[in-house]
């Protein structure tokens, strides 16, 4: 007996390259996709329908996929919040953490902002070693969806799952969000390490220790450490290392070669969240008594333009903590 599969409906909020890639992936599986962009004229839509009305987007689908830079999340979420209710799910693909706006401005994941600014509880995030251009081109890829609500994972699988897109799931939403954000910072460091000409052995050691450190920091934020050692952490970072064109990696390389951070940002042509995030993560680690020499070095070394040899020495001579 054949049963007609009802088309999933998806609204993508954000018409940047990442939003379009996600929209394309969903459309390729047969989902009915509508993309919201504030400037539809500037969107390279790849055949997707684009609207400039956020209300049209939220009316189009109960599954909303948010793909905007982290600094815009709160504003957009508040706008969406007035248009949706408890039946909607919001899944974001934002690699970043933001301040909670309190006096201490504690770092919180994007899901916390969505929880605060919208009525829905069914919130999730996308991450893992998926690359924008590969996803857009329909190349075989793997993506991770995280949500504490199994029905959110289910609709994401329905809307995006295809032979060319394999979807892994976790209920450790906090873990995936922190891993995605911290990986961005580590990608800069990897670019930097390469730029100053560190050997492959040392870069590998550095990456391994850095992921452990990220896991400790994430744990302090309520994440499960093991999430960092899987696709959302290690996997994502390996993709960053392999990907020459990743903006964070290029930024790191450029700084290592003596370029200024500002020039490097201008060269990347987009905002790189890692720059602002690194010192805040280092401060978070300090506040929560987590040993984080690598993140601290990145925050106060690379971006502060200390000589590379000094930074390497700092890390090489620091106390050895934890098992190998």
């Amino acid at each position, binding site marked *: 007996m054949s049963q007609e599969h009802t088309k999933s409906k998806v609204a993508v909020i954000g018409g940047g390259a990442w939003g379009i890639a996600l929209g394309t992936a969903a459309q390729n599986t047969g989902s009915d996709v509508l993309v919201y962009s504030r400037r539809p004229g500037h969107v390279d839509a790849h055949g997707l329908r684009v609207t400039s009305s956020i209300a049209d987007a939220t009316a189009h689908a109960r599954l909303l996929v948010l793909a905007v830079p982290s600094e815009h999340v709160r504003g957009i979420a*508040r706008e969406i919040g007035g248009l949706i209710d408890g039946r*909607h*799910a919001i899944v974001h693909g934002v690699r970043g953490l933001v301040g909670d706006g309190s006096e201490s401005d504690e770092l919180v994941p994007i899901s916390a902002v969505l929880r605060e600014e919208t*009525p829905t*509880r*069914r919130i999730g995030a996308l991450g893992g070693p998926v690359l924008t251009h590969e996803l857009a081109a329909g190349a075989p890829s793997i993506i991770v969806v995280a949500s*504490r609500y199994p029905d959110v994972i289910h609709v994401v699988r329905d809307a995006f799952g295809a032979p060319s897109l394999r979807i892994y799931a976790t209920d450790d939403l906090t873990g995936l969000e922190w891993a995605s954000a911290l990986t961005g910072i580590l990608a800069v460091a990897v670019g930097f390490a390469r730029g100053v000409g560190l050997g492959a052995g040392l870069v590998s050691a550095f990456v391994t220790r850095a992921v452990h450190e990220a896991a400790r920091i994430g744990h302090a934020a309520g994440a499960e450490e093991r999430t960092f050692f899987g696709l959302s952490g290690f996997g994502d970072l390996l993709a960053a290392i392999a990907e020459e064109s990743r903006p964070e990696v290029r930024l790191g390389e450029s700084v290592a070669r003596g370029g200024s951070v500002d020039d490097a940002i201008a060269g990347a042509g987009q905002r790189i969240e890692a720059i602002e995030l690194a010192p805040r993560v280092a401060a978070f680690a300090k506040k929560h008594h987590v040993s984080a020499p690598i993140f601290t070095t990145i925050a106060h070394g690379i971006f502060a333009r200390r000589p590379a040899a000094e930074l390497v020495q700092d890390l090489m001579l620091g106390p050895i903590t934890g098992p190998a």
Partner: protein
Amino acid sequence: MKAPIFQFNEQREELVQSVVDRVVAEARDPMLLLNDAAYHEIRRLESSHDRDELGRWRRIARSIGGLDASGAVELLRETVSYHARDVAGNFDRRVYTLASRVAPAGLSVLLSPHVVLERSILEVLQGEGLADRIWTSGPIERIRRLAEIGTLVYVPTHLSNLDSPVFAYALLSSRLPPVTYGAGKNLFTNPVLSFFMRNLGAYRVDRRLKHELYKQVLKTYSCMLIERGFHSLFFPGGTRSRSGGVERKLKLGLAGTGLEAFVRTRLPKRPVGAGAVSRQVFFVPATINYMLTLEAETLIDDHLKEAGKARYIIEDDESTRIGRITSLARKLMQMEGSCAVRFSDPVDCFGNVVDDEGRSYDRRGRRVDASTFVESIADGEVVMDAARDVQYTRELGDVVIDAYLRDTIAMPTHVVATAAFARLRAHARSSDDLFALVRRRDEVVVPYRELIAEIQSTQARLLELEKAEKIVLAPAVRGATAEELLRDAERALNGYHTSPVLRSRDSGVALLDPKVLLYYQNRLAAHGLAWAGGTSR
């Protein structure tokens, strides 16, 4: 006052039958459930003296293997019926009327059963006025209104076995309809308490039974009561707070049936359970606060026993000792505001605040329809989804926890214990851990002025917190001087607990029982006011 519980007895038989029907209909693997029940029961009964019951379960265990599918369903039905009948409560309007007419005194009967044996019930009921001592506060008008348009699920903090009668009387004196609740079977051993609980809507929860089938029966019974509009009471802490601290983690297990009931009465095709009404379900967090806790010493002892490992069901504590109950009752009678129940703002099943008409609002104050939370993302139909609801319930738990903190009422005993314990720590060795601290019985004498200064500073911090709406001060704390607070606390603590806790001497105030001080200071630990080293298990 209208409330479905007044018609409980007429529905009882049919309710029990519906519970049985649903549990049997929804059992995926009857054989597995029966085996699990038999395994757990035989294991439990082997160490008890109930040979008949053990024999019964052994026979069941032997017969399971030879059953075919229909035979298994039949045996399942029998077993479920047996448990459902054991759980089901009763509501006797005459008992309720009696209790409400003499409301101000009724509690003292519950508190001091021996008095009943000596004098006639009425004489006692008319004579004393303990319920006057229960100070109730919070958005009572709104809750009263919501009780008319929806079903209320009260989820208060849990400190003492007196909580359910105290809460029942707080409802009564606030002119809120009575509730049904599950009470530990061990409480039914006290004949008078049992008489009242049984006839005022309590159902029996046997905490010794660990098998899945029994849990299903309990959950279904509770869920069906809420579906039928019975206002319910659960203690989501699961057990009395051992440390004396406000609960920071909740097991919303049975209270979660509030959400299940909400979903079930909205399903497009309604399953078993004809008497259900599609109403809103509102959760009302509340705190029950005592100047003195009946079982303080036993509870803190249990708390201090190796963290988490040795937790057991306390069968024998102060609440089974009549002398202790009367002595507490006498103490509470002497003190103004010695017991306070504070209701928090009611929320829907998803933790959204609700207004007087039961409409829900999100954190930004925008109206939101509660039903939409249980609609499927895919097609917008209301669906049952246990995994989804576990998560909703967990988030509701976070909202309840926040409400507990905000609506904790700080009593003189808490404030003075906080200050005294802070001084104890200051006078102790810095290497002293929790256990070393509580062993310092009658070792530290704090100069009077020093203790007074500490009480003043605690009181000042409390006032600040209250201004930020993060705690509530009992009137006896807000307006009192530090000297008065110390006197009140000393008067309360000494003479009720088995040995004196604080004693003023010429050289200062002697801290005689650090353990009891720890217990009372723990109430303010989660607020950051008191030492937090003695609350985690």
